[in-house]
């Protein structure tokens, strides 16, 4: 099944170089249809409950030193007519339990992000185990706090807990610390939140650390796609208020560079960097931005600081004075739930995004994910929950392809992989191990319901705005 998907994707890639955007999108669309057909059986994401299929598997299991043949009957529900077929499968994993180490921030002001990662991982684990595990092996999770010395935690996970894979990492700084360690620990790490482009561009592409992958969007989303949003807004003078570390500085730099290229009449009138975490009072920053006659504010502040900033912008009347606000991580669920129906809106919109937006794309896989997530956790899924969920299924797919824990084989299986996930089709670019997929921006709109929605979606193909090798 995989081969079919792969071929479709290759066709679209070849076309991309020459074809117009319309035909390119058409090819992608046809590719996606092909993928969708392939996905039902071949890929781990469970399909809608339509018909029941009984598959009798004859497996060769190596256990306790001797080889024996086990015949097991697996009943699963897949779309299509009921068929019963004999499958001779020889693949099994050498371990009964695949242990996955999860790294997320679990203490301090960003602690909620560890929970979001954990929720996605737990849901995927429960689903996979309920459906028979990975080639018969169960999945188990070991969760650690990356805020408590990420290098130590990663080492302990591998050396003491004996995990087979590492998944997660919220902070860009931590991703850059733990990334180089992976070649020594010889484990695959799939990053599901940290966004610095240096992780994939430098560690993977330049330094060839093959163990590293990322399923979430890098700062291309925060800094580059946001400029495409800004170029169509009636705003010429932009002010930046960004967290003073890697993520904030890089996003602002990308935003400026891209917007200057897209439009020549924009000015960047004020440039502020706030301490992060720990900025509790934005009033001097806002006052300075207004003092520079800013018409729009660009900020990648997130989590607690995003909530603080939006509230204080409202209190200080900034929302009445500027035309538009862009806050790339503003549709993260913690911010959306906390601000709720008081999420302020500027005249030309408060434009926000995430690493995944729960209602996009409208596919059965996504709808099912959102429904299951809500059933399990009572809330709409946050982006890092989706990315972590997908990372686990990606590992499942890779293990099912290789049938072993051999690192090189797994890396090979994951490079160039196309996985249909709640966030849409993701392609793992072989050069930098970065997942390419589309996440929209939208305008905060209050229309009743549990949380504000996004309208006027700005969607662009990842192919268009991702930076691409050579970096």
């Amino acid at each position: 099944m995989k081969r079919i998907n792969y071929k479709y994707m290759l066709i679209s890639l070849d076309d991309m170089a020459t074809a117009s955007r319309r035909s390119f999108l058409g090819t992608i669309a046809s590719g996606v249809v092909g993928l969708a057909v392939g996905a039902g059986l071949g890929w781990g994401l469970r399909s809608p409950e339509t018909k029941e299929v009984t598959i009798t598997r004859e497996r060769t299991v190596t256990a306790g030193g001797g080889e024996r043949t086990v015949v097991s009957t697996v009943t699963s529900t897949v779309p299509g007519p009921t068929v019963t077929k004999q499958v001779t499968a020889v693949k099994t994993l050498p371990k009964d339990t695949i242990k996955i180490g999860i790294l997320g921030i679990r203490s301090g002001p960003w602690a909620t992000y560890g929970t979001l990662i954990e929720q996605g991982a737990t849901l995927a684990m429960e689903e996979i185990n309920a459906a028979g595990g990975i080639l018969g092996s169960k999945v188990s999770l070991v969760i650690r706090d990356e805020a408590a010395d990420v290098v130590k935690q990663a080492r302990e996970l591998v050396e003491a807990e004996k995990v087979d894979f590492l998944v997660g990492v919220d902070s860009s700084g931590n991703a850059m610390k733990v990334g180089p360690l992976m070649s020594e620990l010889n484990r695959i790490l799939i990053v599901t939140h940290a966004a610095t482009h240096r992780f994939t561009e430098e560690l993977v592409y330049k330094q060839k650390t093959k163990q590293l992958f990322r399923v979430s969007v890098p700062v291309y989303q925060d800094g580059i796609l946001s400029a495409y949003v800004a170029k169509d807004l009636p705003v010429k003078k932009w002010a930046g208020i960004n967290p003073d570390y890697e993520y904030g500085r890089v996003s602002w730099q990308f935003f400026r560079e891209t917007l200057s290229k897209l439009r020549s009449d924009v000015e960047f009138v004020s440039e502020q960097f706030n301490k992060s975490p720990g900025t509790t009072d934005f009033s001097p920053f806002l006052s300075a931005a207004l003092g520079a006659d800013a018409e729009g504010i660009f900020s990648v502040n997130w989590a607690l600081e995003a909530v603080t900033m939006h509230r204080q912008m409202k209190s200080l009347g900034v929302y009445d004075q500027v035309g538009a606000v862009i806050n790339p991580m503003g549709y993260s669920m913690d911010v959306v739930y906390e601000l709720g129906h008081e999420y302020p809106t500027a005249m030309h919109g408060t434009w926000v995004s995430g690493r995944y937006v729960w209602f996009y794309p409208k596919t059965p896989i996504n709808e099912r994910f959102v429904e299951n997530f809500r059933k399990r956790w009572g809330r709409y899924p946050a982006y890092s929950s989706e990315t972590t969920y997908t990372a686990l299924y990606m590992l499942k797919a890779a293990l099912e392809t290789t049938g072993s824990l051999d690192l090189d084989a797994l890396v090979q299986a994951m490079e160039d992989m196309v996985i249909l996930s709640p966030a849409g089709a993701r392609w793992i670019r072989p050069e930098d191990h970065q997942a390419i997929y589309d996440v929209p921006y939208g305008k905060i709109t209050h229309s009743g319901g549990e949380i504000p929605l996004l309208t006027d979606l700005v969607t662009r193909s990842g192919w268009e705005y991702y930076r691409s090798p050579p970096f």
Partner: protein
Amino acid sequence: MLELLGHQLLTGLFRSSYYWLIASGLTLIFGVTRVVNFAHAAFFVLGGYIALTVDILTGNFWLSVATSTIAVGLLGMAVERGLVKPLYRVESLYQLLITFAVTLIINDASKLIWGAASRSMKIPAELALPVKIAGRSYPLFFFFIIATAVAVFILLYIVLEKTFWGLKVKSTWRDVSMAQALRINTGRIYTTTFFIGSLLAGFGGACMVAFTPVAPGLGDSLIITAFIIVVIAGLGNLIGAYVSSILIGVAESLFLLYLPELDILLIFVIMAVVLLVRPWGLFGEK
């Protein structure tokens, strides 16, 4: 140009008042008991949590401030009685450690009770009224905080300088054994000081939560700024702490306008210079 400067000074003054609401209790407790209360900012954030809970339940901002002030004050007193008191005789390092432990307990307890995500509340309607100044609008809340900070300063000054109790506090601060010889119940002075200091933290936290959302562990970043302010002033010096709050708050705000690149560095540079030139602080005694 002048207007711009004025706006920046005003936001600086607001920020100073916010700093002072944290630093006042911290320096009071240190001045009298010589305990570096690491948990002080955690008390401040806890005050915010209690206030927003009461606000959700009753919808009354003033009641929530009052409840939180008293609750945190009592908690501070309990911590002093139960945990800090047995450690007065040993090295001050142990007092720092125990208050650090209290910080961790409060951080994780608030995560259990209020969740890991940030929590916020709206500025109450009566304080949300916009005040127009030179083309910008500020909520009345802004001036309420600035006025509150001044009031806290005056009140503390009167209590310490103009009352008999203040005299006893000061004598305890000067020389504990001499104060005890004069039959001053220094144990009670310590406890009361802790109560008042924590009271201030609860009060400040409750007032500020309407403007600044809270999250578990937020205090850890607030305490550093508060410590620096207190150190610059001279540990335990109340008037100095107010002046240095204003100095730092206004300087930060102005630097943001003119030299934003140096803003985060600023407070540390001031501290380093003060410690090199006057290690006992700007207002401290040698």
